[in-house]
């Protein structure tokens, strides 16, 4: 008997055209409760090292968090995990919205997709049953039309549709997944993996309620009500609800950490044209994810120099800075249109913008010219060039085929100095957060198994003033001493280690980065209460941190067996050179300081400081000794299925 989960996952083999369910017991869930942990467990066990990310052997896992679907604000997230076609390592991306909660209500905690269908298909899931259905007529269609067609075919306008766009169908290495058109698993190319399986969509409908899965429904419901009421009275939650992420742009620029001209600069001379005030002139409303009172999702609609509808989400801050300052485009209307195009075509906005900014710098330096770009004048600031390029990337046509591979591969193809302009870690483009102004974020970019990601740890400015709301909220995590944003000493490393485990736990529990402390209103004790009420487990904060750490270590083991080492935990050289302008002009991350911090972080994590691999002792401490043979984990494909899992000492695989 499990509480807080369904105890059941769905397996879909698209080569064989079969579906089946599989169950796990409570002891298994306590170790791998959901999301990143549950998915990493299966990925390690079922994908051979060296498997082609875009081949039928890749294993795509869509996993809800433990609390996903609970009546608690921000408990909406699910993870898409597979080997990444962008990085070659652990691929992961999470999204909120409605699909994850619906899967939980359909009686499933996760879906594992293997193989490749000979023809395009979609999966229709309803209350624990699933059908593989013909999608030949949907292939190549816009997401809006696909969603409507699936709802009509299934005779249910409330079915929740997760799907890829054209970019995913055509194998763009940073293609994304979207649910309900507005919520995106953007990073690491999970859309390309789904497309490689000829799977256009996964439609889900369920009739359960999460509260009926809970061990102590009354406590869970009471917590949810209290948190919802608290949103308007909590400063940071109020900010997310009122301004959302577009409210960040001005502050980033004022602080000199608004990535500008492919991260050469930290301040943008045309910031007023992409500012929060300008955004307010285009905003048509805000939306929410399932049962979330924070309601932070922006939407825009206008018809002026460009036309944008409110069919898709955003632009969020990442798109505003990515297509705005980082491509030197001082026109929020053009930025909003670029964002809409990426969403409609199924491209990750961060990697699309980062790859285009890279190409602009190559163009500026004469490494490529109009003869290479199909005549597109790729100067920084040319908005129409960006809008012309995005569909070509999605279709992999002309110069778009070069950029569809991501900046690292495009740089190798272009040659010369181009690799020095590619702002990526492990092949994944940098998010719009400047590590030269928040060095802990740089540690996260460098070490994260999925490549550069801004959501894997805490952001340095929150830990400067011990009297501030965010700082006081993390005392329960043991953070009590403040530290400066540019400090890379032991105290910063310690805060970063705590933050990574906490944020990883969020990815396991299905909580949004914008929910728990230090970012917003859900206190550390509230998270513990929620897990206890959902499951009946007597968990502590420390156990939740360990759950987060276990998930990180599984991702690291995956990368180690794919050949990743400490040498891959590096920042682009540009971040070790001075920023060109703004309040932080001249600031660089000292290479020696960074390497020392990395060594110190590895020691805290129990990883070998030379190789970057988890030590056997740390794996044993986390109950992950079954991963230690370095080739396969937990049985799976190579070791012969569930028997291997049981032999490895993992409880309760049924």
């Amino acid at each position, binding site marked *: 008997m499990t509480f807080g989960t369904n105890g059941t996952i769905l397996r879909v083999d698209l080569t064989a055209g079969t579906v089946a369910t599989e169950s796990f017991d409570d002891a298994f869930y306590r170790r791998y409760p959901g999301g990143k942990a549950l998915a990493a467990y299966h990925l390690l066990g079922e994908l051979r090292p060296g498997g082609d990310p875009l081949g039928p052997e890749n294993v795509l896992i869509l996993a809800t968090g433990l609390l996903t679907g609970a009546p608690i604000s921000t408990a909406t997230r699910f993870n898409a995990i597979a080997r990444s076609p962008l990085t070659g390592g652990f691929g992961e991306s999470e999204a909120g919205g409605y699909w994850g909660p619906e899967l939980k209500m359909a009686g499933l905690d996760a879906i594992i997709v293997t193989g490749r269908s000979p023809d395009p298909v979609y999966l229709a899931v309803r209350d624990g049953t699933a059908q593989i259905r013909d999608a030949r007529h949907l292939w190549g269609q816009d997401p809006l039309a696909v969603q409507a067609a699936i709802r009509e075919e299934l005779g249910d306008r409330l079915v929740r549709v997760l799907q890829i766009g054209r970019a995913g169908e055509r194998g763009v290495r940073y293609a994304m997944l979207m649910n309900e058109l507005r919520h995106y698993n953007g990073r690491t190319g999970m859309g390309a993996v789904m497309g490689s399986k000829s799977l256009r969509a996964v439609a889900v409908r369920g009739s359960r309620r999460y509260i009926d899965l809970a061990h102590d429904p009354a406590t869970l419901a009471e917590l949810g009500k209290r948190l919802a009421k608290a949103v308007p009275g909590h400063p940071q939650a*109020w900010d997310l609800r009122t301004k959302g992420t577009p409210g960040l742009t001005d502050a980033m620029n004022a602080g000199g950490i608004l990535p500008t001209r492919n991260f050469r600069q930290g301040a943008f001379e045309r910031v007023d044209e992409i500012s929060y005030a300008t955004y307010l002139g285009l905003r048509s409303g805000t939306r929410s994810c399932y049962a979330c009172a924070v309601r932070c999702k922006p939407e825009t609609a206008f018809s002026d120099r460009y036309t944008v509808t409110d069919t898709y989400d955003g632009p969020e801050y990442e798109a505003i800075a990515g297509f705005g300052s980082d491509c030197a485009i001082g026109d929020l209307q053009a930025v909003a249109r670029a964002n809409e195009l990426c969403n409609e075509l199924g491209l990750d906005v961060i990697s699309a913008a980062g790859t285009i900014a890279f190409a602009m710098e190559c163009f500026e330096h004469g490494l490529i010219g109009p003869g290479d770009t199909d005549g597109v004048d790729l100067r920084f600031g040319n908005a129409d060039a960006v809008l012309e390029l995005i569909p070509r990337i999605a279709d992999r046509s002309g110069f778009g085929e070069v950029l569809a591979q991501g900046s690292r591969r495009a740089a190798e193809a272009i040659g010369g100095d181009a690799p020095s302009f590619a702002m990526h870690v492990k092949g994944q483009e940098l998010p719009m957060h400047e590590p030269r102004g928040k060095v802990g974020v740089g540690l996260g970019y460098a070490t994260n198994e999925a490549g550069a990601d801004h959501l894997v740890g805490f952001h340095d*400015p*929150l830990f400067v003033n011990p009297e501030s709301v965010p700082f006081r909220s993390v005392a329960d995590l043991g953070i009590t001493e403040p530290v400066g944003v540019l400090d890379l000493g032991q105290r910063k490393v310690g805060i970063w280690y705590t933050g990574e485990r906490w944020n990883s736990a969020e990815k396991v529990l299905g909580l949004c980065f914008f929910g728990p402390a230090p970012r917003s209103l859900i206190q550390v004790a509230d998270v513990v209460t929620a897990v206890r009420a959902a499951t009946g487990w007597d968990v502590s904060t420390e156990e939740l941190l360990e759950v987060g750490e276990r998930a990180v270590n599984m991702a690291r083991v995956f990368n180690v067996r794919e050949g990743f080492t400490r040498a891959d935990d590096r920042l682009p050289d540009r971040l070790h050179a001075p920023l060109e302008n703004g309040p932080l002009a001249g600031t660089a991350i000292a290479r020696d300081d960074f390497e020392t911090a990395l060594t110190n972080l590895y020691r805290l994590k129990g990883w070998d400081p030379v190789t970057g691999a988890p030590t056997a002792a740390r794996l044993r401490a986390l109950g992950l000794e079954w991963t230690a043979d370095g080739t396969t984990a937990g049985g799976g494909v190579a070791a012969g299925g569930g028997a291997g899992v049981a032999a490895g000492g993992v409880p309760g695989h049924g």
Partner: protein
Amino acid sequence: MKVHLGGHLAFYDPAKRSWFELHLEEEAALTDVIRELGVPEAEIALAAVNRTVVSLADARVTDTDRLDLYPPISGGAG
């Protein structure tokens, strides 16, 4: 003086305003102005006067200035 309260700092304005005018009779210490605004100093990570970053402790402002105040800056959704 033009005042901009970035991020959650506008939460502390009784009318929840992000932009407004504040009349200053004479030059004043920035800390005094912030106290009058009711924004907790601990929540302010960055102050800029006429778009130049200033030290919260030392800066002085006049009625013709533009003042931008920002809280600690965290992450944005993708």
